[in-house]
């Protein structure tokens, strides 16, 4: 068995003296898609933001515990800007930068390496295909990106994250406000990307979790802070949950 790509151990996140999440421990392996499900406010987004180091660097939260990426402690030995290229985050609400679709795709990657025009074009086509957006926008790559529909914008933001060539992709409810077509395309994209990346997806939709996960983490905040109640293979969590909170949330009983 290959060693996990990402190991989260005893993760605690607090805001002042208020715990947001406690005792979060899980692994992500290569070639697997893990979803986090759970009621809103249970700290799902906070976990993603802690892994990507937005929680401690940008939101001023206190993060303790350990997160190891390819064996190295992200709080000690990985420079944060390099870490974020390897572990990219797709936000719930797509945020499109001013300018063309092309400029948006290259927004992150052009700061990391100089590229010839041909290589740029190849990269744009590759990541837009991976994000299942290429067919819809191939004739208007130089048009303003803010004219796209919200579903297309989200796939563009996804492509922009893929362009920095991440090994781990974190997605925070990426389809929560999207049309069914865009949702299906993003799910297809995730299934295809699974073979090369580890994927951690937060979803509000149990259907989506059931459709595409390999492993599922169920979080709850019934104790006043977010914590993992149960985790396991997708069949186990959805067909045979052990914990009463999970049973209630998943089987609605």
């Amino acid at each position, binding site marked *: 068995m290959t060693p996990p790509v990402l190991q989260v151990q005893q993760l605690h996140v607090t805001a002042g003296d208020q715990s947001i999440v406690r005792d979060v421990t899980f692994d992500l392996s290569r070639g697997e898609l893990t979803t986090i499900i759970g009621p809103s406010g249970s700290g799902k987004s906070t976990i993603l933001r802690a892994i990507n180091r937005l929680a401690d660097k940008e939101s001023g939260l206190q993060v303790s515990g350990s997160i190891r990426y390819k064996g190295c402690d992200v709080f000690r030995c990985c420079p944060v800007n390099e*870490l*974020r290229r390897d572990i990219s985050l797709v*936000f719930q609400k797509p945020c499109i930068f*001013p300018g063309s679709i092309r400029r948006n795709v290259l*927004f*992150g990657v052009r700061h990391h390496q100089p590229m010839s025009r041909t290589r740029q074009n190849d990269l744009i086509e590759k990541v837009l295909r991976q994000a299942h957006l290429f067919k819809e926008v191939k004739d208007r790559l130089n048009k303003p990106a803010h004219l796209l529909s919200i579903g297309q914008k989200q796939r563009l933001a996804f492509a*922009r994250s893929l362009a920095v060539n991440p090994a781990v992709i974190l997605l925070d409810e990426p389809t929560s406000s999207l049309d069914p077509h865009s949702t299906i395309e993003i799910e297809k994209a995730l299934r295809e990307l699974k073979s090369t990346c580890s994927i951690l997806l937060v979803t509000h939709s149990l259907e989506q979790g059931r459709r595409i996960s390999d492993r599922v983490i169920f979080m709850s905040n019934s104790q006043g802070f977010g914590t993992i109640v149960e985790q396991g293979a997708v069949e186990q969590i959805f067909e045979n949950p052990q914990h009463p909170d999970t049973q209630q949330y998943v089987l609605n009983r």
Partner: protein
Amino acid sequence: MTIRLFKQRIFYAVSAASALMLMGLVALALYLVIARGIPALSFSFALQPMAEGGLSGGVRHQMIGSLILLITTLVLVVPVALSIAIVHTVYLRESSVQKSLSLILHVLNGIPSIIFGLFGFFVFVKFLGWGKSWFTGGILLSMMILPTVALTLSEGMRRIPHEYIENARSLGLSKEQMVISILIPQSASSFLSGLLLGLVRAVGETAPIMFTATVFSGATVPNGIVDNPVLSLPYHIFTLTQESYQAKAVQNAWGSACLLLLIVFGLNALATPFRMNAFEEIKTA
């Protein structure tokens, strides 16, 4: 009629009357300047050098001097205001140092311009021994407008939705790269509008430059820093007005005032589209 309605009417009447009065005064001032200035105004007035101690000729070197002061101010204030705003919004987020910096800028904004003149006189003219110099004028004017420019700019930067900054950071951009690709372009209109407003103030000021940078006659184009004053429109007006027993002097003062107003209106007109955020780039989803 109820008392409340009555109070509302009174309030309305008083506000309307004061607004009208104020507008009337402004209109009168404009009318005076324009009505008296226009007869003196011509292309040759703007382009010819002064003669007979301001009684004839034009204001060529006063225009050039004011332009030199304006450009020096611009060149000095842009990098400083930019650095202050960036430090203020990016590096001092929510800290007590940030609040103190805001406070200092606001206090600085309220300092009367004559104080800058005095400060410059003692520091640059006397202590550093520069004598009167255009460069001192630029330094003082840029100090005077720095708070306005820096505060409008950091306000503009703070208005950029935080998600843009987070998205850029989450793609692995360093703070510096984020500043260059998001913060500066997205606050460009606030910057330009604040800058132009500041320059409008600077170009019309007499107090900071009268004993530090400008003379009434005997200077043309500077060829160094020490003992190199310039002529300038505001000081020209100031001096000519003191000689008001000479009809010609008064007429030329009005003419110069008219030119100064034209410059100010021009800069203001340039600032208007930026103030209305016509170039705001971010379109939220």
